[in-house]
């Protein structure tokens, strides 16, 4: 308990007391309709593919058909009109552009520099070999096909998976490293061996997490335009991190950063995939600078499925030591990532296994834990971020194992969780892996979810139906979600990255509000949720707030949107800047109303003397005077402020419960219902929160039941269209109910926690546990995803 108090005090000392200040008025907490929606609903929204510039060239990639090969020659001279109507660039032509390397601050991680177009060697089917350009896309495609047919390769033995990658005679992806295993590290927390020695029982599970991907509806795309006279480069990219991308492009191309402007126009979904800098975002701008003409590259879906980053794949071996009455004594876990052809920039191949290892304890009291993390290179598309990085796999493996243990001990799975779960009064809590859980409702979320599905009645019905040969199941998945990625969160996650974000709030002479933020929206509805915060901060209607984001030329520097950071960081920077501008307004209004600024309130766009609403000035009058009236204006008259925020780590939590029925003859799983309890601290817009939960759960459902990026033993991708790579459709999705609990963070501005990933973190385990529960009479153990009908039949022993 004293340690708990220490954590709270330390945090307040470190982050300061104004962390809690936020002005909550008419808008925060309201399910406001999204201000941005009219343009989406009418087809007016413009994504990269919708942009055209005069003299624009279309770029088409030549990509490797081989998983592992040396490039012997590329004879560009076969292209008719080369250098006049058709242009082509190979890795050799971009030799001066430095390769992309990850930024993770770990000494014992081997690096795999990735040229922005392959030089000498290709490492996965889809690796970039050349870029061909023409004024017409069809012409560029024809030319790319022609060039593709004359590239000479010397094939090397493929390394299609981790087992092959670790074999003693494996071909090496990077010969200079002398190994394909780029990382291995074990850390022990507490007294693990003692815990296992003392245990009544040990349960273990091997678990193969499938490879799946974000696959946003808008593929990747880049348009670059270089103005040679001004030496100004403008890049439109479907990115989640415009400012960071500007820094990277400037660095890679050797341009002054103030001569590079990055615009993320409308972005049609990202889910983490559009966070890392991809090689295409460097190569296309480089070519634009060389040719002095605008260059546009729009990825097609086939290309996306083979060459955009994949995610999630890792092998996990977990063991849990327990007493007969279900108390967890210790856990051992080995997490091995299948990183693909390059340890991808920004977060490296550790993004899956290392984050999984650190997050493994989840909402449970686990004091003795040994984590071992490994990462291998394989000839597949690189693994990078996708909603729920690492955490999805950790949650799935842990929750499956806990059900297994509960079954083995004859304890109800909900009860097993309760016995080991952290109570609210134990928080803040320092997990054994160094994560400071600030606050939450772990047990309450579990209980609420079970109550919603009438757990006891379900068990009864399950028993009755089993007698009739019908198999229904219920799966529970509890989670914590690390949110608000700033310096602290990333360090606690195990991959330290510095953080920097700002917002500028300005009131113009007419009294209208413009908010410019460094976070970047790609479907999250920031133009509404952040406007709600500004509106409450300044006492105006959200319709009077315009939100700018996604353009480095009119927004302050910051890292954009990923890892559930924007509600906390965007929200806090806006709240702080709005509070400063409010002060400036009150100074002016105080002079106009001959009252002390402390005695004034702003509400509904009017500044009045508290208690005397008839003594008021409209915000428009005050703003006008602040700009034009030298009698009352401030010494710095502009009504504007820019504020920074690098948040303390904080953790959302919740519980997902899924109900299903398994058809014992066909192996088909019918999902009946999903209930999700979500606690993300203070809620800004409940409609948006609910929508995020729905979306994340369905992505998790895809990963658990449908999606799998399959490679043949020869390293060829077999899932190259939506015919083979199945994402959930309208008919795959059961009703989802979302229940909200609000436990404000004691550490962050306004008590806001991030959210948006919990559904993807928790849903796969809920679904897998539901199937395992339904099939308990068959002794089924789920050891891999996705749960396809033939796998179900195998679990039931019906096919071999």
């Amino acid at each position, binding site marked *: 308990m004293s340690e708990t108090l220490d954590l709270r005090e330390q945090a307040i000392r470190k982050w300061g007391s104004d962390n809690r200040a936020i002005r909550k008025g008419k808008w925060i907490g309201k399910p406001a309709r*999204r201000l941005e929606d009219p343009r989406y*609903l009418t087809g007016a929204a413009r994504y990269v593919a919708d942009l055209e510039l005069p003299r624009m060239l279309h770029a088409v990639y030549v990509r490797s058909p081989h998983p592992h090969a040396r490039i012997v020659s590329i004879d560009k001279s076969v292209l008719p009109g080369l250098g006049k109507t058709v242009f082509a660039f190979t890795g050799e032509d971009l030799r001066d552009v430095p390769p992309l390397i990850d930024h993770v601050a770990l000494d014992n991680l081997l690096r795999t520099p990735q040229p922005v177009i392959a030089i000498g060697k290709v490492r996965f089917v889809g690796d970039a070999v050349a870029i061909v350009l023409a004024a017409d896309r069809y012409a560029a495609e024809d030319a790319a096909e022609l060039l593709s047919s004359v590239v000479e390769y010397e094939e090397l033995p493929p390394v299609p998976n981790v087992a092959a990658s670790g074999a003693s005679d494996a071909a090496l992806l990077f010969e200079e490293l002398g190994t394909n295993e780029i990382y291995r590290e074990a850390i022990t927390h507490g007294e693990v061996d003692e815990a296992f020695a003392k245990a009544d029982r040990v349960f273990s599970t091997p678990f193969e997490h499938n490879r799946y991907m974000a696959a946003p509806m808008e593929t990747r795309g880049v348009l670059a335009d270089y103005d040679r006279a001004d030496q100004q480069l403008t890049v439109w990219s479907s990115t989640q991190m415009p400012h960071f991308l500007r820094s990277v492009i400037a660095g890679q191309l050797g341009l002054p950063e103030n001569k590079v402007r990055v615009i993320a126009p409308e*972005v049609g979904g990202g889910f983490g995939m559009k966070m890392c800098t991809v090689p295409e975002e460097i190569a296309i701008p480089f070519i634009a600078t060389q040719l002095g003409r605008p260059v546009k590259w729009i990825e097609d879906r086939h290309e996306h499925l083979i060459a955009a980053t994949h995610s999630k794949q890792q092998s996990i071996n977990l063991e849990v030591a327990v007493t007969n009455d279900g108390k967890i004594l210790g856990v051992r876990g080995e997490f091995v990532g299948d990183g693909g052809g390059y340890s991808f920039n920004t977060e490296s191949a550790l993004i899956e296994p290392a984050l999984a290892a650190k997050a493994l304890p989840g909402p449970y009291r686990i004091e003795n834990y040994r984590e071992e993390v490994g990462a291998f290179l394989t000839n597949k598309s690189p693994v990078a971020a996708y909603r729920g990085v690492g955490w999805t796999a950790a949650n799935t493996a842990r929750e499956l194992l806990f059900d297994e243990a509960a079954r083995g001990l004859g304890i109800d799975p909900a009860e097993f969780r309760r016995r080991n779960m952290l109570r609210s009064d134990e928080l803040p809590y320092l997990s054994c892996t160094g994560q400071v859980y600030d606050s939450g409702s772990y047990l309450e979320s579990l209980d609420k979810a079970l109550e919603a599905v009438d757990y006891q009645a379900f068990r009864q019905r399950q028993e009755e139906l089993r007698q009739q040969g019908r198999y229904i199941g219920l799966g529970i998945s509890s989670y914590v979600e690390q949110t608000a990625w700033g310096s602290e969160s990333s360090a606690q996650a195990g991959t330290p990255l510095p953080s920097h974000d700002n917002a500028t709030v300005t009131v113009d002479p007419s009294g209208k509000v413009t908010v410019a933020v460094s976070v970047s929206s790609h479907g999250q509805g920031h133009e509404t949720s952040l406007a709600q915060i500004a509106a409450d901060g300044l006492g105006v209607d959200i319709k009077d707030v315009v939100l700018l984001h996604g353009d480095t030329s009119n927004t302050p520097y910051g890292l954009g949107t990923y890892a559930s950071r924007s509600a906390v960081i965007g929200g806090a920077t806006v709240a702080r800047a709005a509070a400063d501008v409010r002060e400036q307004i009150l100074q002016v209004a105080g002079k106009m109303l001959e009252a002390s600024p402390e005695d004034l309130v702003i509400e509904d766009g009017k500044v009045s003397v508290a208690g005397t609403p008839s003594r008021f000035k409209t915000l428009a009058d005050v703003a006008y005077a602040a700009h034009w009236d030298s009698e009352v204006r401030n010494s710095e008259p502009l009504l504007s402020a820019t504020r920074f925020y690098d948040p303390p780590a904080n953790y959302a939590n919740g519980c997902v419960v899924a109900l299903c029925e398994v058809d014992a003859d066909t192996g088909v799983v019918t999902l009946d219902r999903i209930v999700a309890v979500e606690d993300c601290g203070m809620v800004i817009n409940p409609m948006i929160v609910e929508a995020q939960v729905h*979306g994340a759960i369905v992505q998790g459902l895809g990963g658990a039941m449908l999606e799998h990026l399959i490679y043949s033993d020869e390293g060829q991708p077999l899932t190259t269209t939506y015919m083979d790579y199945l994402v959930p459709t309208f008919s795959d999705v059961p009703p989802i109910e979302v229940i909200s609990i609000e436990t404000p963070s004691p550490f962050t501005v306004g008590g806001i926690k991030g959210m948006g990933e919990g559904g993807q973190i928790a849903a796969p385990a809920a679904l897998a546990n539901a199937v395992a529960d339904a099939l308990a009479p068959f002794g089924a153990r789920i050891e891999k995803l996705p749960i396809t009908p033939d796998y179900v039949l195998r679990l039931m022993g019906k096919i071999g």
Partner: protein
Amino acid sequence: MKYPLNVRVNGVETSVDVEPHRSLLNVLREDIGLTGPKEGCDDSECGACMVLVDGRPVNSCSYLALQTDGREITTIEGVSEPSCPHSIQQALLEEGGVQCGFCTPGIVMSAKALLDANPSCDEDEVRLALGGNLCRCTGYQKIVRAVLRAAEQLQDRAGTTG
């Protein structure tokens, strides 16, 4: 070799010359300047490119432009005036059925086709009619609710006027 294409697009007579291999989606976006319909797969698998041809929903990525000669095409841009949104657009706004918006034009067109043909549709019919539209953001829940809400409104309106 280009051939003349004469179509009525969102109520406007339009003539362009196009090569025979070009898709309707491509011609709408590049020659006619209507970028509302999106390319999500170019393979008839996602519905982002959905438009109405003579009132019938089609994936314009997999429809040759010249096949539409003499016909009536409606794209998302032709569904309504901004000041007077269609019931489905209004319902999507109210229910929160939009996130990144990339699938939205296709969803609106499929839903409009359904509501035009069957304004008393139920949930199963909605899920079936929109089965060819993928959305990666919303998990579909709020879209289904929105289409049912729009259907209700259209029926109410039909009830009061008829």
